Protein backbone atom coordinates (compact mmCIF):
# COMPACT_ATOMS: atom_id res chain seq x y z
CA UNK A 1 0.00 0.00 0.00
CA UNK A 2 1.34 3.43 -0.92
CA UNK A 3 1.96 6.06 1.75
CA UNK A 4 -0.46 8.47 0.08
CA UNK A 5 -3.21 5.86 0.36
CA UNK A 6 -2.52 5.41 4.08
CA UNK A 7 -2.73 9.17 4.58
CA UNK A 8 -5.87 9.52 2.45
CA UNK A 9 -7.59 6.67 4.33
CA UNK A 10 -6.72 8.27 7.65
CA UNK A 11 -8.04 11.67 6.55
CA UNK A 12 -11.23 10.21 5.02
CA UNK A 13 -11.94 8.43 8.30
CA UNK A 14 -11.56 11.67 10.26
CA UNK A 15 -13.65 13.60 7.75
CA UNK A 16 -16.53 11.15 8.23
CA UNK A 17 -16.94 12.29 11.84
CA UNK A 18 -20.09 14.34 12.28
CA UNK A 19 -20.40 17.26 14.65
CA UNK A 20 -22.80 16.93 17.57
CA UNK A 21 -26.23 18.16 16.35
CA UNK A 22 -26.78 19.91 19.69
CA UNK A 23 -23.60 21.94 19.42
CA UNK A 24 -25.43 25.10 18.30
CA UNK A 25 -27.83 24.82 21.25
CA UNK A 26 -24.89 24.34 23.61
CA UNK A 27 -23.11 27.41 22.24
CA UNK A 28 -26.25 29.55 22.56
CA UNK A 29 -26.79 28.34 26.14
CA UNK A 30 -23.19 29.17 26.98
CA UNK A 31 -23.50 32.64 25.48
CA UNK A 32 -26.68 33.33 27.46
CA UNK A 33 -25.08 32.03 30.65
CA UNK A 34 -22.03 34.22 30.14
CA UNK A 35 -24.04 37.35 29.47
CA UNK A 36 -25.20 37.65 33.09
CA UNK A 37 -21.75 37.88 34.66
CA UNK A 38 -20.83 40.54 32.10
CA UNK A 39 -23.67 42.76 33.36
CA UNK A 40 -22.79 41.93 36.96
CA UNK A 41 -19.14 42.79 36.32
CA UNK A 42 -20.12 46.19 34.96
CA UNK A 43 -22.21 47.00 38.04
CA UNK A 44 -20.18 45.35 40.78
CA UNK A 45 -16.97 47.45 40.53
CA UNK A 46 -18.95 50.72 40.75
CA UNK A 47 -20.76 49.53 43.86
CA UNK A 48 -17.51 48.22 45.33
CA UNK A 49 -15.60 51.41 44.60
CA UNK A 50 -18.31 53.53 46.21
CA UNK A 51 -18.32 51.34 49.32
CA UNK A 52 -14.53 51.50 49.62
CA UNK A 53 -14.47 55.30 49.15
CA UNK A 54 -17.27 55.75 51.73
CA UNK A 55 -15.51 53.57 54.30
CA UNK A 56 -12.26 55.54 53.86
CA UNK A 57 -14.13 58.84 54.30
CA UNK A 58 -15.85 57.49 57.41
CA UNK A 59 -12.57 56.33 58.98
CA UNK A 60 -10.94 59.72 58.32
CA UNK A 61 -13.94 61.64 59.75
CA UNK A 62 -13.99 59.45 62.86
CA UNK A 63 -10.22 60.00 63.22
CA UNK A 64 -10.63 63.78 63.08
CA UNK A 65 -13.54 63.64 65.51
CA UNK A 66 -11.65 61.55 68.06
CA UNK A 67 -8.55 63.70 67.66
CA UNK A 68 -10.36 66.95 68.29
CA UNK A 69 -12.06 65.52 71.37
CA UNK A 70 -8.74 65.01 73.14
CA UNK A 71 -7.58 67.99 75.24
CA UNK A 72 -4.25 67.83 77.07
CA UNK A 73 -3.81 68.99 80.71
CA UNK A 74 -0.51 70.76 80.16
CA UNK A 75 -0.20 74.09 78.55
CA UNK A 76 2.85 74.39 76.42
CA UNK A 77 4.82 77.58 75.94
CA UNK A 78 5.55 78.22 72.34
CA UNK A 79 9.04 79.51 71.58
CA UNK A 80 9.87 81.30 68.41
CA UNK A 81 13.20 79.94 67.25
CA UNK A 82 15.10 81.19 64.25
CA UNK A 83 16.58 78.12 62.60
CA UNK A 84 19.28 80.14 60.83
CA UNK A 85 20.72 81.12 64.18
CA UNK A 86 20.41 77.69 65.67
CA UNK A 87 23.05 76.00 63.58
CA UNK A 88 25.69 77.49 61.36
CA UNK A 89 25.55 75.83 57.94
CA UNK A 90 29.12 76.85 57.14
CA UNK A 91 30.25 74.01 59.34
CA UNK A 92 28.80 71.61 56.77
CA UNK A 93 29.57 73.39 53.53
CA UNK A 94 33.15 74.26 54.67
CA UNK A 95 33.09 77.45 52.63
CA UNK A 96 35.11 79.37 55.17
CA UNK A 97 37.49 76.52 55.97
CA UNK A 98 40.52 77.76 53.97
CA UNK A 99 40.35 81.31 55.27
Amino acid at each position, binding site marked *: *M*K*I*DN*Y*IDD*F*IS*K*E*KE*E*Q*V*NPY*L*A*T*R*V*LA*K*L*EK*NEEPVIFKAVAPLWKNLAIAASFALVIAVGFGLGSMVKGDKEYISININDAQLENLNLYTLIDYDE
Partner: protein
Amino acid sequence: MSEEQLIEKILSGDKEAFRLLMERYQQQVFRVAIGFVHSRQDAEDITQEVFIRVYRSLSSFKEKSLFSTWLYRITINTSINYINKNKRRNLLTNAGNSLISLLNKSNEERDAHQQLEATEIEKSIQNAIDGLPEKQRKAFILSKYEDLSQREIAEIMKTSEGAVEQLLVRAKKSLQKKLAYLVGK
Protein backbone atom coordinates in the same frame (compact mmCIF):
# COMPACT_ATOMS: atom_id res chain seq x y z
CA MET B 1 -31.16 33.96 3.75
CA SER B 2 -27.87 35.42 2.54
CA GLU B 3 -24.73 35.63 4.68
CA GLU B 4 -24.88 39.43 4.89
CA GLN B 5 -28.52 39.35 6.04
CA LEU B 6 -27.68 36.76 8.67
CA ILE B 7 -24.77 38.83 10.00
CA GLU B 8 -26.93 41.95 10.07
CA LYS B 9 -29.61 40.12 12.06
CA ILE B 10 -27.07 38.69 14.50
CA LEU B 11 -25.60 42.14 15.09
CA SER B 12 -29.07 43.43 15.91
CA GLY B 13 -29.33 40.71 18.59
CA ASP B 14 -31.16 37.91 16.77
CA LYS B 15 -29.96 34.68 18.39
CA GLU B 16 -31.88 32.46 15.97
CA ALA B 17 -29.93 33.99 13.10
CA PHE B 18 -26.76 33.01 14.91
CA ARG B 19 -28.06 29.46 15.27
CA LEU B 20 -28.62 29.36 11.50
CA LEU B 21 -25.10 30.63 10.88
CA MET B 22 -23.66 27.98 13.19
CA GLU B 23 -25.64 25.21 11.55
CA ARG B 24 -24.39 26.37 8.18
CA TYR B 25 -20.71 26.39 9.11
CA GLN B 26 -20.26 24.03 12.08
CA GLN B 27 -19.28 20.99 10.02
CA GLN B 28 -16.46 22.82 8.21
CA VAL B 29 -15.13 24.29 11.46
CA PHE B 30 -15.30 20.84 13.04
CA ARG B 31 -13.44 19.22 10.11
CA VAL B 32 -10.57 21.71 10.30
CA ALA B 33 -10.41 21.33 14.07
CA ILE B 34 -10.30 17.53 13.86
CA GLY B 35 -7.46 17.87 11.35
CA PHE B 36 -5.47 19.65 14.03
CA VAL B 37 -6.41 17.62 17.12
CA HIS B 38 -7.54 14.22 15.74
CA SER B 39 -10.05 13.84 18.55
CA ARG B 40 -13.82 14.23 18.27
CA GLN B 41 -14.19 15.63 21.79
CA ASP B 42 -11.39 18.18 21.37
CA ALA B 43 -12.66 19.18 17.93
CA GLU B 44 -16.10 19.84 19.43
CA ASP B 45 -14.58 21.97 22.19
CA ILE B 46 -12.70 23.97 19.55
CA THR B 47 -15.83 24.36 17.39
CA GLN B 48 -17.71 25.66 20.40
CA GLU B 49 -14.94 28.12 21.24
CA VAL B 50 -14.74 29.29 17.63
CA PHE B 51 -18.43 30.20 17.52
CA ILE B 52 -18.27 31.97 20.87
CA ARG B 53 -15.37 34.03 19.48
CA VAL B 54 -17.28 34.66 16.26
CA TYR B 55 -20.31 35.90 18.21
CA ARG B 56 -18.21 38.25 20.32
CA SER B 57 -16.17 39.68 17.47
CA LEU B 58 -18.68 39.66 14.64
CA SER B 59 -18.94 43.44 14.82
CA SER B 60 -15.24 43.64 13.90
CA PHE B 61 -15.72 41.49 10.79
CA LYS B 62 -14.99 43.64 7.76
CA GLU B 63 -16.61 42.47 4.61
CA LYS B 64 -13.42 42.93 2.62
CA SER B 65 -12.93 39.18 2.71
CA LEU B 66 -15.44 36.35 2.66
CA PHE B 67 -17.03 35.33 5.93
CA SER B 68 -15.75 31.77 5.41
CA THR B 69 -12.17 33.07 5.04
CA TRP B 70 -12.50 34.97 8.32
CA LEU B 71 -14.04 31.90 9.97
CA TYR B 72 -11.21 29.63 8.77
CA ARG B 73 -8.65 32.05 10.23
CA ILE B 74 -10.40 32.01 13.61
CA THR B 75 -10.66 28.21 13.49
CA ILE B 76 -6.96 27.79 12.74
CA ASN B 77 -5.91 30.21 15.49
CA THR B 78 -8.25 28.64 18.04
CA SER B 79 -7.03 25.14 17.17
CA ILE B 80 -3.37 26.11 17.53
CA ASN B 81 -4.04 27.90 20.83
CA TYR B 82 -5.96 24.86 22.04
CA ILE B 83 -3.06 22.54 21.17
CA ASN B 84 -0.51 24.77 22.90
CA LYS B 85 -2.71 25.05 25.99
CA ASN B 86 -3.21 21.30 26.25
CA LYS B 87 0.32 20.16 25.42
CA ARG B 88 0.97 18.75 28.89
CA ARG B 89 -2.37 16.94 28.96
CA ASN B 90 -1.67 15.46 25.52
CA LEU B 91 1.71 14.19 26.68
CA LEU B 92 0.01 12.36 29.55
CA THR B 93 -2.67 10.96 27.23
CA ASN B 94 -0.03 9.72 24.79
CA ALA B 95 1.92 8.11 27.61
CA GLY B 96 -1.29 6.42 28.77
CA ASN B 97 -2.08 5.19 25.27
CA SER B 98 1.44 3.80 24.87
CA LEU B 99 1.08 1.92 28.13
CA ILE B 100 -2.25 0.48 27.05
CA SER B 101 -0.74 -0.57 23.70
CA LEU B 102 2.14 -2.23 25.53
CA LEU B 103 -0.24 -4.17 27.77
CA ASN B 104 -2.37 -5.15 24.80
CA LYS B 105 0.66 -6.63 23.07
CA SER B 106 0.54 -9.61 25.40
CA ASN B 107 -2.75 -10.57 23.77
CA GLU B 108 -1.82 -12.97 21.01
CA GLU B 109 -5.13 -13.07 19.22
CA ARG B 110 -4.75 -12.31 15.54
CA ASP B 111 -7.62 -9.77 15.32
CA ALA B 112 -6.32 -7.83 18.25
CA HIS B 113 -2.85 -7.79 16.69
CA GLN B 114 -4.19 -6.49 13.39
CA GLN B 115 -6.25 -3.87 15.17
CA LEU B 116 -3.23 -2.81 17.14
CA GLU B 117 -1.20 -2.52 13.95
CA ALA B 118 -3.90 -0.38 12.34
CA THR B 119 -3.99 1.84 15.43
CA GLU B 120 -0.22 2.18 15.33
CA ILE B 121 -0.30 3.16 11.65
CA GLU B 122 -2.98 5.77 12.39
CA LYS B 123 -0.94 7.06 15.31
CA SER B 124 2.14 7.35 13.09
CA ILE B 125 0.23 9.31 10.46
CA GLN B 126 -1.25 11.53 13.15
CA ASN B 127 2.20 12.20 14.64
CA ALA B 128 3.64 12.88 11.19
CA ILE B 129 0.92 15.47 10.43
CA ASP B 130 1.29 17.02 13.89
CA GLY B 131 5.06 17.18 13.42
CA LEU B 132 4.84 19.32 10.30
CA PRO B 133 5.98 22.94 10.66
CA GLU B 134 3.03 25.21 11.46
CA LYS B 135 2.58 26.78 8.02
CA GLN B 136 2.88 23.45 6.20
CA ARG B 137 0.41 21.94 8.62
CA LYS B 138 -2.14 24.73 8.09
CA ALA B 139 -1.87 24.47 4.31
CA PHE B 140 -2.01 20.68 4.40
CA ILE B 141 -5.12 20.56 6.61
CA LEU B 142 -6.99 23.16 4.57
CA SER B 143 -6.10 21.32 1.38
CA LYS B 144 -6.80 17.77 2.52
CA TYR B 145 -9.62 18.18 5.04
CA GLU B 146 -11.48 20.99 3.30
CA ASP B 147 -10.44 20.38 -0.32
CA LEU B 148 -9.75 24.10 -0.73
CA SER B 149 -7.93 25.40 -3.76
CA GLN B 150 -4.44 26.91 -3.47
CA ARG B 151 -5.94 30.34 -4.14
CA GLU B 152 -8.41 29.97 -1.25
CA ILE B 153 -5.68 28.71 1.08
CA ALA B 154 -3.46 31.62 0.04
CA GLU B 155 -6.29 34.03 0.91
CA ILE B 156 -6.81 32.46 4.33
CA MET B 157 -3.10 32.35 5.13
CA LYS B 158 -2.50 35.81 3.68
CA THR B 159 0.22 34.60 1.35
CA SER B 160 0.75 33.91 -2.36
CA GLU B 161 -0.47 30.89 -4.27
CA GLY B 162 3.14 30.01 -5.10
CA ALA B 163 4.01 29.94 -1.42
CA VAL B 164 1.06 27.64 -0.70
CA GLU B 165 2.13 25.32 -3.49
CA GLN B 166 5.62 25.16 -1.98
CA LEU B 167 4.21 24.47 1.47
CA LEU B 168 2.08 21.62 0.17
CA VAL B 169 4.96 20.05 -1.76
CA ARG B 170 7.21 20.24 1.31
CA ALA B 171 4.49 18.83 3.56
CA LYS B 172 3.96 15.88 1.22
CA LYS B 173 7.69 15.17 1.02
CA SER B 174 8.06 15.41 4.77
CA LEU B 175 5.17 13.01 5.39
CA GLN B 176 6.51 10.52 2.87
CA LYS B 177 9.91 10.61 4.51
CA LYS B 178 8.49 10.14 8.00
CA LEU B 179 6.16 7.35 6.97
CA ALA B 180 8.47 5.55 4.53
CA TYR B 181 8.69 2.54 6.86
CA LEU B 182 4.96 1.84 6.33
CA VAL B 183 5.51 0.80 2.71
CA GLY B 184 6.80 -2.64 3.67
CA LYS B 185 3.78 -3.39 5.86
